[in-house]
């Protein structure tokens, strides 16, 4: 039978307040946490919250905030960092390699999220305002320029060019009747035939012009030789002749 020592009892009595204090703090934290969670849930479920969000979205404040953000250096900084750290590539690879994307899409589809989000944004005019602002501002152009000049875009283009998908697309295009019909229409169009005939006439004119120039040089040389052989004066200014117009 185990004997309890008097010293052990004393220690237990001495640590009792501390043990009680820790237990009380744990209970308090749990109660505060539960209360906060309940408050957040109540706030999110409240129709008032929805009204507040709607009001904020519809207010000019939202538009000004968006404009300020786009006008500042934020877009450039974001674009640079996105390009520098290859964020798009990494995110795309991570999403495509895992099952998270499919799971998220399934859940969102099941909850009818896309339709609700779309309807809300369309109803509030957020889409129109955002698209107008982005298209009219210089930010889109700067972001596109940065993206197009990035090595990541170059690698992406190279991968697309080397992929089998492009080869198959080209093969299908070449096999299609519509393409050759289009080519035939273009080839027999009056504009193209006119251009080709002018090109042919231009080439013939060029050859004839070259022959004319060479023959006239040969004429001049032959005459110099003949006049020298016959000890005649070189041909000076030729006498005026009949009026001659173009052929």
């Amino acid at each position, binding site marked *: 039978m185990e004997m309890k020592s008097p010293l052990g009892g004393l220690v237990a009595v001495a640590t009792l307040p501390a043990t009680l204090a820790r237990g009380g703090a744990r209970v308090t934290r749990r109660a505060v946490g539960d209360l906060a969670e309940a408050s957040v849930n109540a706030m999110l479920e409240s129709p008032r919250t929805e009204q507040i969000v709607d009001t904020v979205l519809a207010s000019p404040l939202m538009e000004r905030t968006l404009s300020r953000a786009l006008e500042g250096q934020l877009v450039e900084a974001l674009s640079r960092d996105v390009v520098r750290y290859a964020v798009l590539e990494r995110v795309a690879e991570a999403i495509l390699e895992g099952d998270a994307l499919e799971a998220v899409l399934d859940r969102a589809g099941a909850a009818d999220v896309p339709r609700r989000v779309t309807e809300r944004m369309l109803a509030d005019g957020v889409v129109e305002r955002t698209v107008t602002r982005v298209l009219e501002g210089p930010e889109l152009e700067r972001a596109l320029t940065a993206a197009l000049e990035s090595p990541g875009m170059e690698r992406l283009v190279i991968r697309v060019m080397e992929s089998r998908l492009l080869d198959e697309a080209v093969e299908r295009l070449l096999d299609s009747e519509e393409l050759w019909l289009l080519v035939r229409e273009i080839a027999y169009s009056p504009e193209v035939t006119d251009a080709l005939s002018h090109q042919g006439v231009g080439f013939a004119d060029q050859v004839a012009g070259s*022959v*004319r120039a060479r023959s006239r040089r040969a004429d001049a040389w032959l005459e110099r030789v*003949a*006049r020298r052989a016959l000890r005649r004066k070189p041909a000076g200014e030729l006498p005026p*002749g009949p009026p001659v117009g173009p*052929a």
Partner: protein
Amino acid sequence: MSTPARDRGDLVAARQAHAVNARVHAGTLTEATAPVYEGLVTRGIAFAIDSAVINLVALVVSVSVGLALSVLDPSANAETLALAVGAFAYAVWSVGYFVVFWSTTGQTPGDRLLQIRVCRASDGNVLRPRKSLLRFGAMMLCALPLFAGFLPILVDNRRRGPHDRLAGSVVVSAPVEPRPGRA
């Protein structure tokens, strides 16, 4: 053979004719330019092109007629007659080719390609048919002594050969005006 006095007379006549032309057709004639007389090589190339055209047409016609005759199987006399007719037709075709072109446009196809023109030395108009025929005959005579008859072109001030002097013609440059572009 012409003399310097005759040349001066030609010049005076040419200027008078041009002045009359300008008065009569004021605003309708293209502005006259100083003529450039064409030399032996340029004219020789033009003549070679014309000869090729004449012989090509003659070859096509003779081959066609020969094929037709081979089917009909004519007698020896008929063949001789066909040859004589063919030779006459060839001569007429050759003479007619030059005479008609010189008398109508002043340019054979070869001349057109080389942008040269045969015209009267006096007023720049096209030759009359009789003068064209005379020029052609004289040209054949010049060609007989291994084309030596054309050598005076090299030393004449207006690059005229004996056939030109006989027919009163000169060969001048006739550049084609560029066509206006499409709108």
